[in-house]
């Protein structure tokens, strides 16, 4: 029952075919949260967000309110919204941008008001051509309606929002790379410290970077209050969250469920959610939190969908993606494809990542093709160790950003969970799955 009882916070409008229009938005309570926020002081709005302990929905899970409080000490920040969703098998922000752009814009204005930002930049993944059209149209409507622009709803608060298209680079989801990209440069992550753009952000000025889903929660929080939000979930993981379910399930898709009260098993098997594995086949492994995350086996299916609960078991909820692999899956092939992705998307700044990803991909490729050597398993782990010393989780950092140290996740998971399957590839000179 817990699977379906929680209110829908960010997906309440999706059954409408015109969910992206201003008319539908206003008919369904749109911009009421903003009106309420503008009747409060910026500090009160920020306090409300602190109170709900809204953990960022982008991947790192950093509390949104704390990011803001770093900024409220200084003047004239920028708000940058990360809509560059590119983590493989993650497709929830895509849905929010395309299907409910006004909700996102309302969240942006609420956040900008709380931190007193004069300008917001919404960085949308370049491949989302329809999403860019929808969100720009919504923004045009919002200017006309008075929800964005000069003297919003007569409050005296003004905000300009600029929709900025990306151009195809996974790394630009990393917030400092995103800022570089927004400045018109290659998407190279910046050296840390400073760890947060709150210190030195866009154009060197203080900046808050928040994810699309994070901000899409704010209108509901303003209307229903912090208590209603924290009544959902448990521990540090409050509210609901979008999970992008993909791979071997009957009904892949984006599902909004209550955090912690819902388990991986609910998500994969509940008839109202994933609906189980096709053909009644067995779950071989699941990848929680995007391909940067270590894998789980079927013994972890009853784990609650909570940030700390998943971290304690050695992985992460990350970007909110869950990939199910059934017993027909070749894990060498899966690990190879994920590694190939990282090789293609490494920005090339740091040697361990640039060179390591290429080595790892070639070794995995030869194992899958049947020309692997027995020593290749140790060799893989050795290269992984150069990327993330100890190959533990969370990984040790050897590079400017976390892309490099995330590469070992799928390889180490594959070898640790399915060592025999790797050895069969070597021994038989090919893939047993054909």
């Amino acid at each position, binding site marked *: 029952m817990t699977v379906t009882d929680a209110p829908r916070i960010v997906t309440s409008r999706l059954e409408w075919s015109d969910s992206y229009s201003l008319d539908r938005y206003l008919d369904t309570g749109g911009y009421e949260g903003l009106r309420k926020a503008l009747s409060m002081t910026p*500090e009160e709005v920020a306090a409300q967000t602190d109170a709900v302990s809204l953990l960022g929905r982008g991947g790192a899970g950093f509390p949104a309110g704390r990011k803001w409080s770093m900024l*409220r*000490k*200084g*003047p*004239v920040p920028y708000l940058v919204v990360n809509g560059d969703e*590119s*983590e*493989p*098998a*993650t*497709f929830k922000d*895509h849905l929010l941008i395309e299907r409910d752009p006004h909700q996102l814009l309302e969240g942006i204005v609420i956040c900008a008001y709380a931190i*007193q930002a*004069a300008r917001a930049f919404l960085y949308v993944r*370049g*491949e*989302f*051509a*329809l999403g*860019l*059209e929808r969100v*720009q149209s919504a*923004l*045009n409507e919002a*200017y*006309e309606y008075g929800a*964005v622009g*000069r003297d919003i709803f007569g409050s005296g608060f*003004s905000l*300009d929002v*600029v*929709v*900025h*298209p*990306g*151009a*195809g*680079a996974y790394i630009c989801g990393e917030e400092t790379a995103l800022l570089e990209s927004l*400045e*018109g*440069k*290659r998407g190279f992550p910046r050296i840390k410290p400073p760890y947060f753009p709150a*210190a030195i952000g866009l*154009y060197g000025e203080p900046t808050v970077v928040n994810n699309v889903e994070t901000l899409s929660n704010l209108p509901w929080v303003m209307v229903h209050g912090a208590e209603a939000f924290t009544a959902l979930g448990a521990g540090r993981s409050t509210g609901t969250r979008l999970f*992008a*379910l*993909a*791979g071997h399930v009957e009904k*892949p898709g984006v599902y909004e469920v209550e955090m912690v009260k819902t388990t991986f098993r609910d998500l994969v098997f509940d008839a109202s959610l994933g609906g189980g594995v096709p053909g009644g086949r067995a779950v071989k492994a699941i*990848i929680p939190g995007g391909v940067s995350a270590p894998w789980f086996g079927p013994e972890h299916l009853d784990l609650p969908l909570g940030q700390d609960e998943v971290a304690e078991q050695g992985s992460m909820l990350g970007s909110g*993606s869950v*990939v199910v692999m059934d017993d027909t*899956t070749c894990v060498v*092939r*899966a690990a190879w494809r*994920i590694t190939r*992705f990282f090789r*293609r*998307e490494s920005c090339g700044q740091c040697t361990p990542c640039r060179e390591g990803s290429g080595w790892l991909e070639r070794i995995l490729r030869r194992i899958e093709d049947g020309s692997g050597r027995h020593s290749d398993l140790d060799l893989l782990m050795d290269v992984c160790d150069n990327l993330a010393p100890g190959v533990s989780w969370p990984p040790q950092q050897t590079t400017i950003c976390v892309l490099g140290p995330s590469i070992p996740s799928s390889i180490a998971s594959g070898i640790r969970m399915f060592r025999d399957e790797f050895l069969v590839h070597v021994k038989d000179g090919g893939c047993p799955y054909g």
Partner: protein
Amino acid sequence: MTERHLSAEVRARAAELLELYPHPRSALIPICHLAQEQDGWLRPEAIAEIAELVGLAPAEVLGTASFYDMLHTEPVGRYLVSVCTNIACLLRGAYELLEHAEEHLDVRAGGTTADGVFTLEEAECLADCGRAPVCQVNHRFFGDLTAQSFDTLVDSLRAGRHDADVPPHGTLIRVRRQGGLRVDGDTVAGERAAMAAAIAQRAGSGGAASS
């Protein structure tokens, strides 16, 4: 005045984009999208003109553009067919689909058909995994693909039946900004200074440490 490569329309839209950012370089990528809309790819003449617009050397524009998958420094076909083969699509038959696409279009992934109509590429995750396997044509999504539905798609594209939902290149081709603060820079600067002073005053009176 030398002859311009970018059309008056593209230059007008580029001028609008340049106004949106505190620094002109920020408009570099959006303007590259506009240039691709005109030519299908980034021609050297376009790169030189973009450099002029954003105040950089052409090599800096090329150096930035070459980082991004969607910006093409070589010609591509009228339709760019991007077949995703990342993990979610792989598990639902993406490589079999890509192999079929190569056979059907008679071109290897990364290549362009002899008639210049289709460029086929193997893409990374396109974030539409609920309908895997998926592809994009000029960055418009097509999901739940089978070999048969892929062939139908190709036939429809050739016959021009997708002209309405698959426009030519350019992710911004139908994106037009209307509205905005529409005040001069001095007013905005004045407001920002006043806001900064107000925040500093609040921080002082609230006892918060200033950083």
